[in-house]
């Protein structure tokens, strides 16, 4: 047995741990298999599936290129507007909450309570908020904006906190040592470090919000979701196809742009 082999066998064996974890995962897998019931699968499923695919392959071109309030372009612009406005309001609300839950800024108990609040905000599904806001504003894109704003707070604040807690404090110390005031320290020491990070996080969230906004229509909170739902329940697969194509193209384009901008922001 040469030295290399000795080293190989000397490495700590965590086989037992691995086996136990694998066994647990397998058990969970088998346990969750019991949820599948195929009784509801009907023979018509294949027919519907193939007609969906046919609809997507031959979309309703008229709907895809008309610029009235019924057309896909208008609905997409409305969805973008909901996501945009919601992201801006959400990020404005998330900044103070993030500072309140950063453990290097405020005392521990306050940070803990704010975090709990953020977890609760993050867990409640967007559709529930949508239904609640419809009571405030009536159905329409306005309710969508408020929903998106509230939903984005949770994740934005969490990522903001990570950025704040990783703040390089040695810069602040050196600024103190050359006699900067508190305002100057915030303006030239903290803001430049955080601004590009925050912006990058906000753009990322805008990307996600676009997806959220596209399903809020299901509860009547504006955007492209409602026409999609109607077209589906009426089995008009050509319309479904054109709406889905518009949505997919839009989300892909926005994602491409946002990735470019974020790369630029992070690399400076």
């Amino acid at each position: 047995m040469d030295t290399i082999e000795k080293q190989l066998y000397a490495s700590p064996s965590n086989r037992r741990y691995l086996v136990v974890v694998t066994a647990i995962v397998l058990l969970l897998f088998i346990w969750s298999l019991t949820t599948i019931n195929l009784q509801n699968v009907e023979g018509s499923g294949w027919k519907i599936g193939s007609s969906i695919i046919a609809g997507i392959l031959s979309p309703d071109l008229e709907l895809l290129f008309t610029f009235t309030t019924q057309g896909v372009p208008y609905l997409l612009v409305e969805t973008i507007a909901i996501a945009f406005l919601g992201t801006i309001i959400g990020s404005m609300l998330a900044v103070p909450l993030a500072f309140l839950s950063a453990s290097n800024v405020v005392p521990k108990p306050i940070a803990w309570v704010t975090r709990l609040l953020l977890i609760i905000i993050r867990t409640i599904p967007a559709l529930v908020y949508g239904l609640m806001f419809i009571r405030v504003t009536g159905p329409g894109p306005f309710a969508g904006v408020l929903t998106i704003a509230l939903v984005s707070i949770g994740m934005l604040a969490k990522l903001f906190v990570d950025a704040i807690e990783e703040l390089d404090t040695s810069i602040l110390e050196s600024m103190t040592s050359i006699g900067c005031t508190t305002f100057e320290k915030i303006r030239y020491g903290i803001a430049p470090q955080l601004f590009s990070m925050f912006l990058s996080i906000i753009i990322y969230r805008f990307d996600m919000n676009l997806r959220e906004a596209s399903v809020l229509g299901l509860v009547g909170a504006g955007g492209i979701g409602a026409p999609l739902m109607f077209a589906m329940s009426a089995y008009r697969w050509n319309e479904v196809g054109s709406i889905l194509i518009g949505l997919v193209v839009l989300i892909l384009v926005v994602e491409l742009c946002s990735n470019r901008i974020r790369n630029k922001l992070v690399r400076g």
Partner: protein
Amino acid sequence: MYDKIFPPKRLALPSGKVVAEKRSRTPSVLVLLLIALYFSVEFTGFELKILIDRWDEFFFIVLEMIPPQWDYFPRIWQPLIDTIKMSLLGSIIGSLVAIPVAFLASSNVVKNRLLVSSTKVFLSILRTMPTLVTALIATFVFGLGTFAGTVAIFIFTLAYVGKLLYEQIENVDMGSFEAMESLGMNRKQAFRYAIFPQVLPNYLSTALFCFEGNVRYAAILGYVGAGGIGLLLKEGIGWRDYASVGMILLMLVVTVFIIERVSEHFRKRLI
């Protein structure tokens, strides 16, 4: 491009040398943002007045939820377990299927350009479909119930884990892969012994993270009839039985919190 529209400012240094200072982009970006903001307000009918007048309506519902209706718990239990099972099954199968798909989508392992780019396009189209829309389509094809929800979660997991995995595979150190190939292994064997161990911890951590998110998604899938707790949520809101809704949301928050803690524990161990 930008520097041509707004030419850089020329400064003459005391030494006589002329340097160019590029114009700041902040003002024009701000103007663009303001224009976008104005149009968004127009399009969505955003009115601060309504918000100020009626914001208390929102908290009216929140107050109705407190205290939650405790004896509703036995009815929630089964759908909640169903929700967890749906997301667990979808996540496990999805992340397993993601391995071969990600293998096909990584340009440093598979040399067939067409195959690589078509797999990538396929993955990104799957990823852009909102989960709720996938679930809705799935209920049409597979009928109402948990199976449709599982399919929707499976598709989302496949797309998400697949994308992150092929990015990791493409960024991997190729030295050991080449060494294995030079020893006479074929590409699949070299992938198994050189690349897979490198990406394994990250892959498991991604899959766990995806599972966490899936529990949250699965909670609303019932809204379109795809099984789980969403159906009760829809019922409760439809009947304005907000105390029961409060109980459902409370259970959901507790469950998600526990799952997040557990998965965070394992993710920290992995990396």
